[in-house]
């Protein structure tokens, strides 16, 4: 731990900024190692607050600082919201970048997979609400997350849900700017991305939230495509193949070809699939998973949807189901999972 600041450029002014910062935190335990970062658990010495330190190796890559590290720092520095992971501090040790993040012991994927935990409809409503609030804050700041999925939705000990992993985030594009369509983990990827669109909006995040909503109700991934081609098929089998009638000019998108045409599902079919969903829940799901991104609702419309005002009221975060206490080994898995991505 006590690797003293042997900074490469320790001439005068440069080093005085960080050595005191570094001693403010302890790195107690290594809990995960990814390609570009090591994650430690520790404490903020002054407050005893539990924290996670993500140590990002710099000097390792031939092109200097890694893009995902740059994005993560860039956006987390700007976003302060109860439903976005808090970047408590940033400091440097001998050319490594250290992000001090709040400690979040669990994520939504872990809970979804743990079939011994029962989700009440009010629990699902609470998680969805917190997700949308966090997403709304990102979008108000013109930031696209581009990798929303259950294991990037971390859970604090007090039940608050926090959006994490901004390694793929970017600012909303300028009018003529081309964006990469190779973003978002496949199962949560919006149809415009599957079609290779170079211009897209916050609607890609809303799609992901819709699919997560479905997964919370089903307790299994809603659209688990085996590969990129299969993803198109799985998506349209469930929600209907988009045509120029329902989504003008969709057929001009790069990857729109040789599609099997499935009819859109009837209300009854959706009702059968989501048997516990109320009409309002189904309406909201349908709004968030509109094929045409311009018809998809935005975060404001979603948050104002009647689903959130009808009974039952969303569960208070502190009363939400929690991970069953087992061995603390799990903490490590959660943290390393958070970095894994299938792009």
């Amino acid at each position, binding site marked *: 731990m006590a690797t003293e600041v042997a900074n*490469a*450029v320790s*001439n*005068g*002014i*440069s080093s005085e*900024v*960080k050595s005191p910062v570094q001693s403010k935190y302890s790195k107690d335990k290594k809990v995960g190692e990814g390609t570009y970062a090591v994650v430690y658990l520790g404490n903020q010495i002054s407050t005893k607050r539990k924290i996670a330190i993500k140590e990002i190796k*710099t*000097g390792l890559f*031939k*092109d*200097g*600082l890694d*893009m995902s590290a*740059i994005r993560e*720092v*860039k*956006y987390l*520095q*700007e976003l*302060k919201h109860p439903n976005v992971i808090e970047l408590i501090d*940033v400091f*440097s040790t001998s*050319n490594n*970048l250290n992000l001090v993040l709040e400690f979040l012991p669990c994520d939504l994927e872990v809970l979804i997979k743990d079939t011994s935990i029962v989700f009440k409809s009010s629990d699902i409503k609470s998680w969805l609400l917190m997700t949308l609030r966090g997403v709304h804050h990102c979008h*108000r*700041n013109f930031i696209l997350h581009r990798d929303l999925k259950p294991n990037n939705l971390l859970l604090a000990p007090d039940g608050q849900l926090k959006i994490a992993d901004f390694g793929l985030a*970017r*600012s909303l594009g*300028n*009018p003529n*700017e081309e*964006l990469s369509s190779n973003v978002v983990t496949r199962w949560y990827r919006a149809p415009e991305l599957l079609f290779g669109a170079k211009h897209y909006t916050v609607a890609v995040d809303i799609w992901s939230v819709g699919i997560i909503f479905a997964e919370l109700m089903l307790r299994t991934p809603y659209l688990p495509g085996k590969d990129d081609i299969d993803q198109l098929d799985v998506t349209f089998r469930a929600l209907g193949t988009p045509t120029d009638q329902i989504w003008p000019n969709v057929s001009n998108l790069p990857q729109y070809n040789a599609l099997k045409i499935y009819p859109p599902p009837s209300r009854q079919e959706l009702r059968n699939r989501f048997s516990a969903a109320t009409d309002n829940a189904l309406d909201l799901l349908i709004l968030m998973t509109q094929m045409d991104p311009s018809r998809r609702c935005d975060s404001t419309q979603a948050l104002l949807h009647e689903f959130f005002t009808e009974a039952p009221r969303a569960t208070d975060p502190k009363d939400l189901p929690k991970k069953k206490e087992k061995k603390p080994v799990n903490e490590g898995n959660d943290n390393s999972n958070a970095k894994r991505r299938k792009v």
Partner: protein
Amino acid sequence: MTEQEKEVEEPVPKRVTISNDDLYRRSTQFELWSFTQESLDKAKQKANKTGQLLAQERFNQAFNKSKSENPELFERYKDDELNPQTLITLLTYEEESKFIQFYCQNIVQTTDYFRMPTQVKLTAISLFKKFYLINSMMEYHPKNIMYTSVFLAAKSENYFISIESFVQRLKDVKPSDILDLEFKILQSLKFTLLVHHAFRPLYGFFLDFQAVLLHPSPLMYDVSVDTLGALYDKAKIWLNENAILSDVAFLFTPPQIALAAMYDVNRRVTDRYLKKKFLTTSAVHNDHEEIGDENEEPTNDDNNEIDDQIKSERNQYEILVRTIRKCIRISKQEKPTSEESKEIDKRCKSALSPDKVIERKIKKLTTSP
């Protein structure tokens, strides 16, 4: 309300509305990188002072080393040629400021040469300037800091370019020259990379000018989509020629800078927009339908509330116009010439390598008869 009632009363959660202004005030651009003219000067002076101390130290070392190697020579010329006071070069705060401006022009050339998007150019300039609010040119020569700022800005703005293809097209730069500085720059930036520029609000104003001045029917006989389009284009050029090289990004918000550009390009149209936008109450309660350009007095005198409203709007409008004018003035401050910059560059290099200056001097003194 009795004491008891107070106790049982449930606290009603207060509804807090977060405006877009609130969001801006929470950005790192506002919290860490916005200044008053005084605090900006102070920051620059501090960086300059630190640089001078470092340069002084560096000079002393070189001087003493050289002196111990040539004691007689230093004794003989101690009052003139080898007097430390005349031999040392320290850049003043004004020189550093000028040189920074000059290098911002170089950044524009570099990013244009690589055909990088405007966003990269603007961010690179921002990173570069922020670096020199913390550091001095007497510690880091601006050339490689400039290239590294461009390289880092390109990554931060999603315009990735590999280090080889970047360096390949530059003169006398190795990958390590850039990669070794990248982290240093990020540190000086206090790990903040998101920059809000004036170009996006400028586009927003272009749209809003159309909404306000053309709909439902044109407010001015000579204003159309085409003239507003021309205004927008000229304002972009104005920003490139004036604002981005100056310090306005540290002193004003992006929308203020955007309005300054439009105001200076076409004061009549921009002022009309601002009046229509900000003097809404006086527009409704005024006798004349249209708002006169200057010195117009609200004519409503039977309603104090409306009067106050009009006064406060008028006040807001005037503050805004004053701010815009100040922004224009600072944007258009004189830019350094390349002769001036060459001279500063020489002095900058002397401050960075005093050993070479002393060496040259000794050579001159020992070879000349």
